[in-house]
């Protein structure tokens, strides 16, 4: 009898465990039947400091990394470039010039971004630089012209069940992948997978392919959490203006009463 009870208990736990994801999936916000990612999101991961596993440094907290298999598979020459970038990271990281962070870095950079969703597209507004990325979900394909070079790439998304799959191409070479000098070329091709774990958590996965930098495609995964603070909003951060904004709207010598 005791044994039987235990069996029921185990079965009950199993059913509850299996049942949980379905229950969560039913509760996620939806728009026209698809998951609705509208809201303000941010990672708590240390991905932007260094995607790969690393001990604590003066400029980075320790982290087990977010790369599947731990190591980014660089081609030999590209690895040398990455090491040069790492050595010069205090001056060369494009983030320090406040340049648009790129894809996927903008997503796991530790500053919030907001998603605005319509059936035809998903608009991502980043607090950092207030830059805007449009993920088209209207069945359109990448532009036929092949000379586009975008900071954020050209994004075309489609739904596979409740997962948003986004194909991103047409990059420039101006962005890094993190503060540790991980980088890519204009040949970068990213495939993102966005899916709800629950109504306030997104699992974000990106597979990166770049035949001139990596020996094979590789994948990173970070969780994104919804900002639920009362009245939370993005505050524009055009930090590239900070070096000259002291001169406007008028210099100190002009101030009334001087």
């Amino acid at each position: 009898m005791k044994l039987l009870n235990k069996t029921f208990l185990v079965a009950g736990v199993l059913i509850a465990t299996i049942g949980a994801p379905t229950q969560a999936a039913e509760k996620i916000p939806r728009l026209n039947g698809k998951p609705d990612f509208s809201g303000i999101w941010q990672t708590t991961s240390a991905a932007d400091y260094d995607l790969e596993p690393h001990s604590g440094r003066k400029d980075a907290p320790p982290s087990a990394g977010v790369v599947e298999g731990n190591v980014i598979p660089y081609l030999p020459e590209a690895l040398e470039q990455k090491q040069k970038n790492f050595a010069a990271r205090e001056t060369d990281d494009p983030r320090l010039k406040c340049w648009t962070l790129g894809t996927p870095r903008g997503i796991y950079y530790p500053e919030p971004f907001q998603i605005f969703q319509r059936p035809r597209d998903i608009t991502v507004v980043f607090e950092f630089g207030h830059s805007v990325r449009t993920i088209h979900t209207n069945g359109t394909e990448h532009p036929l012209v092949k000379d586009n070079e975008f900071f954020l790439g050209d994004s075309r998304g489609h739904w596979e069940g409740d997962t948003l799959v986004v194909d991103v191409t047409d990059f420039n070479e101006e962005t890094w992948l993190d503060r540790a000098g991980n980088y890519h070329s204009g040949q970068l091709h990213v495939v993102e997978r966005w899916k709800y774990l629950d109504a306030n958590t997104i699992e974000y996965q990106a597979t990166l392919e770049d035949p001139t930098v990596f020996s094979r495609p590789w994948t990173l995964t970070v969780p994104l959490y919804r900002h639920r603070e009362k009245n939370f909003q993005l505050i524009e951060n055009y930090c590239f203006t900070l070096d000259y904004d002291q001169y406007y709207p008028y210099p100190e010598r002009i101030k009334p009463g001087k």
Partner: protein
Amino acid sequence: MTRSIYLNVAIVIASVTLSSVHAQTAPGQPVGGGRIQLEKTVPVIAEGKWTGKRLSDGQPDVEGHWSNTIANHNNWTDPQGGVPGDPDPRTIPKTPRETRAPSRVSDPADGQVPFQPWARAWQQEFLANFHNPTRPEYVEPLARCAPAGVPKSFIWHGYEIRQYPNYVLFLFGSGTRIIHLDGKLHLPANIKLWNADSRGHWEGNTLVVDVTNNNGKALFGRTGEFASENVHITERFIFDNNGERYNYVAKFDDPTVYTRTWTATIPAKRWSEKNPPDNGWHYEAAVANAPGQPLLHEHYERICVENNGPFGQTAVTPAKK
């Protein structure tokens, strides 16, 4: 090539266009042919009921691409008058003032910003040095890719409106504005922003936006008109029920800089698939790659190439220490 917005290139194109317009236009004729200066008058659009399309959340549907119909930001009060003092005399029209579009200052009646004397003196000093800036404060901030701010964003290239429950989004060629419609309070007053902090609501056909937290750093035009960080702006976007036009009417209140409240008016028109996709200024759209679907336009990413040099590449500013 990159499709990002190279401001210096855009400025050169704008000046070339202006000179050809003024060379070809006889007095009394519409300012046609130019890619920027489409019209010389401001249509009357009355505030009232909205009878046009609505979105599912009840907002009037004004999504899409828009641009002002008069001119770029060369000159705030004589929009089609060129930048005074331009070393290239061809950019300054010889036409009588009344044959060109009216000042964007619709009140007071003299069309001038009612500056306090010290503020007028600074605006004049800026303008006198604009064409050959020898100090950093004489470089127009937009030329450094700073956001065009309020209100200049409405006269700098075409822009896009996207709407969502509780939000109206403005995507400009230089900067982004998120208008909050959910009634939350403004940000704390010591936070100052290039595009300010915007709280809006709809009154019939009119989007009313209360604008505070402005850093006052974005000038209104190359002529140097400005506000301070204490400015309070009330914007009214009055949409025509035909969905094709709207007027931007904004009241500026700033006791630090002006002697009285004044009003700016900027007319705008819609651009869509009915227009050619890329006219180089008002409507920089591309034809979407949509096999088997009806013609569809889209806009590529709007990112200024940061700090790409001052206006005209002529300014020499002190090296950073």
